[in-house]
């Protein structure tokens, strides 16, 4: 049994080694010229003005809630996908019913303007 996992082990080792090796190689061959301006934000947002621990807008929470709901529902797709052949047409119809119920919720959210940012 453990032998079956050797490919996975190799995969993990290669995956872990790849970033380390590339970064090391880059460090060795690139020229080094540190400077203050290089550390400043450049075309990637504005310099932070306040503490990062400030309050987030409540809208982030709303989006997070909606995300959690629709995200978790997908775990019901997984068992169906695994048993797709065995369940056949019945499984497909059942899944469509399930998705239809989700879509009712989504349409309702949309009409409530819960997805609008402003």
């Amino acid at each position: 049994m453990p032998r079956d996992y050797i490919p996975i082990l190799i995969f993990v080792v290669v995956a872990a080694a790849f970033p380390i090796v590339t970064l090391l190689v880059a460090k060795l061959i690139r020229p080094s010229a540190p400077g203050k301006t290089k550390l400043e934000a450049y075309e990637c947002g504005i310099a932070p003005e306040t503490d990062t621990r400030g309050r987030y807008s409540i809208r982030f929470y709303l989006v997070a809630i909606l995300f959690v709901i629709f995200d978790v529902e997908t775990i019901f797709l997984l068992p169906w996908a695994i048993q797709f052949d065995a369940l056949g047409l019945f499984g497909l119809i059942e899944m469509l019913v399930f998705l239809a119920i989700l879509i009712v919720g989504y349409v309702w959210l949309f009409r409530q303007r819960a997805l609008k940012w402003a």
Partner: protein
Amino acid sequence: MDAILFSAADFHVLKPVILLCLFGCGILITDAFLIRNRADRWKNAIPALAAQVAVAASLVQHLGDVRSGGAFSGLNGSMQVDGFAVFFNWLFVLAASLAIVISARYMGAEGEHRGEFYALLLFAQAGMSVMAAGYDLVVLFIGLETMALSFYVLVGFLRDTRRSNEAALKYLILGAFSSGLLAYGFSILYGISGSTNLGEIAKAVAARSEGDLALFLALITCSVGLLFKIAAAPFHMWAPDVYEGAPTPVTAYVSVASKAASFALMLRIFLTAFESAAEAWMPLLGAIALVTMTIGNFAAVTQTNVKRMLAYSSIAHAGYILLGLVAGNETGLRGVAVYLLAYVFMNYGAFALVAALRREGEAAEDIDDFNGLYHRAPGYTILLAIFMLSLTGIPPLAGFYGKYFIFLAILREGYYLVAVFAAIYVAVSAFYYFRLIRACWLLEEGEQQKPAQLDMNFGTRAALVACALLTLLIGIYPQPFIDLAGESVLAALR
């Protein structure tokens, strides 16, 4: 694997639930797309009531099938339609219909009249329907959570009222906690028996030796979870706050329907899965029933808010109903069913009147707010008196028969001391119920206090009259109701 995974028989079993979900989703869509004016929001009650009619029709079918061919199950034995399930489903239909008709005016007065309200009422009912008919741990858990999640939102439906928010939060935290404990008990039951079917679990539990640690843990966690749901002491703390903070129609719905559904779940689990361990849980539940009656009745005496008072009284009622389960004999179970049936009408009547007192810009919920009600609305005051007397258990009103059977049952089992205490508490409860009646006639001379006023519409009036008539009818001519209750509960559980 079977070729047919969902047969016509399964559909027949699930029909009430499917109908409720379809109508619920339909209301969400029609409310979002068709109803544009605030003033038209009450029209959402029409599909909600239509759903009740449709469910009632399928229940008539179920009842006919059960009477002619006995109980039948569907979905590989995970749902079972028997007299028990049909009876409780009737209770939910009644409770939901009454909630719908008294909501329109109340939610309008609160300024939070929206279509989701009716959809959530139906979704909660779908969950309860599953709880009554479920015969499998997974199905029961899903039903319980469908009900509970809908109720959390309904309780907090008044978004701009802090009381409502806080009540919902409290309900959510304690409700989620109790669901978690119950699920933990379920998981251990699954481990003990290797099955989620209640029949299989009952066999596995019976095969276990007494004092088995895993069984004990399952019993404790399941009991605590269920006792939370029925608001039995010492797990009752959420009830008064939730009842007070929730919109009044929701309070009535929670106190009647959620209590009945939780009792249905409790009876199912304790009388099937845990039946062989009865010696372990009967004294435990007996003690809890006594504590519950004590706390409920004495705390109700000190309340000034009517909704809080009714909350404590509902805790006390849960104690009486628990006694029926503790007695465990036929009379006791019949008493539980009759009690729950009578409770629907008398409690809804009381809450409908409290709801009618709520007018725009005025939250009248204190006992003092009932002062002088008789001088304004003598007819409704008489109805209120009927409900209060019935809640006390005075014959010949509906509330009497529930108490009668439960007393009979505990006397038959020889628990004389318990019966004495229960009887004393009836006297205590008479004190606080009568206090509310007295307030209605009270109007002090010379005081420039405005007498209480009721704001009625057709729905509230119809609900009140129906509740009062049925409270009287069950009281005066109880036989058919007792037969119905007895037949359904006993046939299923023995």
